């Protein structure tokens, strides 16, 4: 029945956004496909209504007028008269991807949209694969932008690139701790910092938790970036800046998100799988994982909205005196 299918359609799932498709278009396509699936279900049984009709009934002595209740079919709720049963669905989008990027895009349906907010507040990291090209500089940091500069890149070696990346990671590590508004004078904070598990739980500029080079074949190079509070444009600018650090120039050819929180590429549904049953299965599969991760996030510490004082007291700066640090590896590793 339609209502049972609709009840199974409350939760989050991940879709794979191909490059060249706007995220809104993807969301609309998913909604249309879900509506198509829901409306194609079993049609309602024909309904009846009771009418009291006047007629001659054999009474005790003679015929008399009386009302008889008859059940007659009614067309008021026929699908051809009132239209399809489902005309709109509420589908929300998690962290967005711009048109040229591709990768995992988390969508929430129905009551699952509140889980999207929870995931946002958990401030989990995301994994990206960024492909760069040495030797060119353009105005929008992409390969097809307006060309600004061309340089040579023969002097660039793998060690130089690794050194630059280590520099970037180090500076962002410091920024991570700073933005997490944690008082480092305490023992617990020190231990967490030593293990490298601190991250900010409120708004902050783009922070890179980890960056390394997967593949280097000049002029092309492939980076893996773990970051939070980013946009894809920041990542492209990062590639440009890496080129500048290497005393050459670079543009970004591809940005692909391989992990968003605990959804990886394997969980992402391709375009051919954007239909009712696949999405219902994906929601069911992801349900327990999402619940577990969010519970862990909540139990480990307090989010920015929760009142201070529920956890251990810190004298740190930042919004309230609540404990804002969070373990990186557990929640993000998935």
């Amino acid at each position: 029945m339609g209502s049972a299918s609709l009840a199974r359609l409350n939760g989050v799932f991940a879709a794979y956004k191909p490059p060249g498709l706007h995220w809104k278009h993807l969301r609309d396509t998913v909604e249309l496909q879900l509506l198509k699936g829901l409306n194609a279900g079993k049609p309602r049984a024909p309904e009846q209504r009771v009418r009291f009709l006047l007629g001659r009934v054999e009474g005790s002595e003679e015929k008399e007028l009386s009302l008889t209740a008859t059940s007659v079919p009614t067309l008021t709720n026929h699908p051809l008269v009132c239209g399809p049963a489902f005309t709109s669905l509420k589908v929300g989008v998690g962290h967005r991807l711009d048109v040229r990027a591709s990768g995992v895009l988390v969508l929430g349906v129905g009551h699952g949209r509140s889980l999207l907010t929870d995931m946002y507040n958990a401030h989990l990291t995301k994994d990206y694969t960024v492909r760069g090209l040495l030797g060119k500089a353009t105005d929008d940091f992409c390969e097809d932008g307006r060309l600004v500069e061309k340089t040579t890149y023969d002097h660039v070696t793998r060690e130089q690139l690794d050194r630059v990346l280590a520099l970037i990671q180090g500076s962002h590590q410091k920024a991570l701790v700073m933005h997490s508004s944690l008082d480092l004078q305490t023992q617990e904070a020190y231990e967490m910092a030593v293990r490298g598990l601190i991250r900010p739980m409120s708004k902050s500029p783009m922070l890179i938790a980890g960056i390394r080079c997967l593949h280097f074949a000049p002029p092309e190079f492939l980076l893996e970036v773990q970051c939070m509070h980013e946009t894809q444009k920041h990542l492209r600018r990062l590639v440009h800046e890496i080129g500048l650090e290497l005393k050459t120039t670079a543009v970004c050819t591809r940005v692909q998100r391989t992990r968003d929180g605990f959804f990886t590429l394997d969980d992402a549904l391709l375009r051919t799988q954007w239909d009712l049953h696949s999405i219902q299965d994906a929601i069911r599969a992801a349900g327990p994982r999402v619940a577990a991760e969010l519970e862990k996030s909540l139990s480990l510490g307090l989010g920015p909205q929760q009142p201070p004082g529920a956890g251990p007291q810190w004298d740190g700066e930042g919004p309230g005196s609540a404990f804002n640090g969070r373990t990186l590896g557990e929640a993000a590793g998935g």
Partner: protein
Amino acid sequence: MALTAQQIPRWFSSIRLNSFITATQLGNHFQRPGKTLLRGFSAQPQMSSHNCFLQWGFKTYRTSSIWNNSSQSTKQEINSAESTVLPSVNEQPQKIPNFDSELSLEGLDDVPPLSPLQPISEEEAVQIIAAPPLPPASFTLRDYVDHSETLQKLVLLGVNLSKIEKHPDAANLLLRLDFEKDIKQLLLFLKDLGIEDNQLGTFLTKNYAIFSEDLENLKTRVAYLQSKNFSKADIAQMVRNAPFLLNFSVERLDNRLGFFQKELELSVKKTRDLVVRLPRLLTGSLEPVKENMKVYRLELGFKHNEIQHMITKIPKMLTANKRKLTEIFDYVHNVMSVPHHIIVRFPQVFNTRLFKVKERHLFLTYLGRAQYDPAKPNYISLDRLVSMPDEIFCEEIAKASVQDFERFLKTL
């Protein structure tokens, strides 16, 4: 004077206090309201007797399995649908059955109605009809469908009333039509034309304006098409695929056919085949066609005979979106390096989505099988590239599994 079951339902919709009238005044009152009502609405809900209910539901025009004779559990749906829409709710364009307007004026010079507290006999009490009134104006046909035989028969034919009610003029017209007098002739005419019973519903849903067309005009237009050597089956197919065809006057049809003959410079027979395959060329606007012809000639650089060949194979190219055409052509010609003469042989590429062509081409390039030159070995023709479903494409052309294709798509 006893009432017959015949007379009562005809005025059951009147909301006035006249309903609580005693037997002595029944005679006067019923003659007058009955007559005014007949004047007021020509073809109003004809729920003549309760026998009617038990008959119409089960003799259907379409083999719908929804309506059957099995006794369903009675749901207490007591006229809830009728009373939900109040006259004050309507912000949208309204349909006005207006069968009450004359009634109120006639009743003013009669004997004033008796007080409701006056005792009356059992028989008269039973004869009081106190059904909730039909809303005088509404934004949906749901309120009237149970009281209008025309609407019920249309629903059983398969007409989608929920789409027609979005056009208030059409809905108003439908409420006032009489099935026996007007619609039946039209349906018989359409059946003569060759439209099957189960296709009548979709046809009427799309072309609700045909109810206001004159039957003679329709016959003239069909005769005109036959004079142009369109066979009966051709005409049926054209009308089925382009429901608005018969609403066009003979001059307009003539102009359109002449335009296509001049513009495309095809033979008469080929133009006829083209129009039969895509009759919406005759009903749609001509501007996109003119623009597309210019695009093919000037922007994409096809010669006139090439364009003629492509159009006879895929008539849809004439009405395709200009931006999509240029995007696909740009990708196929510049990225896939397919020359013009091969594209002409497979115009199906213009009918596919760009992402499909891109994904499949990139997969073949990754596998090293992207060979579109007929002279070389392992040649893959464009129509096999785009027209096949994924499984067959993966098995035969790419010689890989569907899982490999999906894994590849996730690396794009």
